[in-house]
């Protein structure tokens, strides 16, 4: 018993440390919103990173987003918009078509994803691919390659599978890092508090499966809260508070329902 307590305290300490660190880092990195065409740095001392472009001596923002400078590289982090796929990203998609040699998966990107039979992770009878994955199945897959014609997916890795049951929600893909948190801190809080199994796709699709619907809805609400207010300070604390409050009211409701039921029974008796 004492051991358990200690570990819990240790965990808390770790969390607070992590938060402090992230707060410090946030202070160091001054983040400002830039618009396309804005000069964000000049001189040859800087290198243009993602979302930027060099124009003579200046580095210019090529898209709308948050400007970030790390060492020499300047980049623009997107604030809004559709998911732009990157090789190695884990995404959640839905099978929308079955062809003779694979499945076509909608991953909510500018192009469709294609999962070949050789990449599906397991032996498949080629005569009928629908036995394996069929229309409307939700899959967790990894992006293997990006070609002009489409996006090649793979499922030959640990943790990549078909999702059964649960619910899928969609948030803006630019909010995904906040939902996951530093080293998974945010998502772990939601998982612990709601007892749900959650998988976050880089494309903004999130799969939630819990023991009961109430837990799933609570997790959904918490994620939507993060997606709605990604810039407020102390977000982790706010989410914790929110989850505690919701759970309390939920317990109260459940208790009240139970009580009412008991009263009715008493009356009957």
């Amino acid at each position, binding site marked *: 018993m004492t051991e358990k307590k200690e570990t819990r305290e240790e965990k808390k300490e770790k969390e607070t440390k992590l938060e402090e660190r992230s707060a410090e880092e946030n202070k160091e990195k001054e983040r400002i*919103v830039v*618009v*396309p*065409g*804005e000069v964000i740095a000049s001189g040859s001392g800087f290198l243009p990173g993602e*979302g930027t*472009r060099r124009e003579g001596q200046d580095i*210019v923002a*090529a*898209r*709308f*987003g*948050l400007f970030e400078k790390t060492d020499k590289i300047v980049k623009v982090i*997107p*604030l*809004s*918009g*559709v998911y*732009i796929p990157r090789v190695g990203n884990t995404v959640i998609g839905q099978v929308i078509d079955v062809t003779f040699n694979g499945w076509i998966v909608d991953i909510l990107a*500018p*192009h*469709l994803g294609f999962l070949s039979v050789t990449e599906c992770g397991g032996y498949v009878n080629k005569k009928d691919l629908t036995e394996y994955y069929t229309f409307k199945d939700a899959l967790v897959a990894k992006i293997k390659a990006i070609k*002009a*014609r489409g996006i090649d997916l793979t499922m030959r890795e640990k943790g990549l599978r078909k999702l059964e049951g649960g619910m899928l929600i969609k948030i803006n893909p*630019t909010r995904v890092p906040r939902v996951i948190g530093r080293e998974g801190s945010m998502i772990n809080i939601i998982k612990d508090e709601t007892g749900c199994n959650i998988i976050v796709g880089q494309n903004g699709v999130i799969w939630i499966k819990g023991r009961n619907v109430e837990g799933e809805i609570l997790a959904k609400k918490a994620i939507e809260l993060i997606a709605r207010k990604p*810039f407020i300070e102390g977000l982790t604390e706010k989410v914790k508070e929110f989850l505690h409050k919701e759970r309390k009211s939920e317990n109260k409701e459940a208790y009240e329902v139970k009580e009412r039921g008991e009263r009715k029974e008493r009356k009957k008796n």
Partner: protein
Amino acid sequence: MATYKRPDGREYDETRKIEAKVGVVKRADGSAMFSFGSSRAIAAVYGPRQLHPQHLQNPEKCLLRCYYDMLPFSVAERKRPGPSRRSTEISYVTTSALSPVLKLEAFPNAVIDVYILIIEADASTRCAGINAASLALAHAGVPMTELVSAVSIGKIGDAIVADITKEEEDYKIKKDGKEIKAATDIPMAILSRANKLSLLQLDGKVTLDELKEAIALGKKTCKKIVEIQKQALKKVKEE
């Protein structure tokens, strides 16, 4: 010196009150509202996304599809909804006004849909539409070189004025006992950074010198508009 007096008492180079707001359509990938006084446009951007039918796909670059329309209640007399000769033309010129700034090669075979709806019309709606669409495209995270801004310059009577209203558009003078139209509308879209024009339309009569003067005034006005657009985009984080 010009003798024309503007009905709302504005200076020649003064625009109506400009409002700009980003993120007005919840389900769109990017959206914006832009208004010149009571000319108000809403733009929603969807994509880049998969393009169907497939024969429209271009393996070199993304397709930009603009759709402009006035809502039935935007004008005094009910406007029949749906495409018309006028709205088809404006959709086309809007597409060509916006495409020079967009980096369309980044998304081959895809499409970007831009829907521009005029909810209140009082002349220069295509300019309000282009301004809103430019903001919405930036909000959707489409790579672009700069923001496009547009304004309609008019030659009303003997004066070159910025941002004309419906009343000014219908300005007439009396000559030999007859009323004749004395207003020329010159809508233009300007890339302020590149110092280029991406749209220039004209219906009416102007001399070459007057046109030069109009373009100079347009460039000056668009510099102010682009600042307002930037401020609107920068407000996104605070919400």
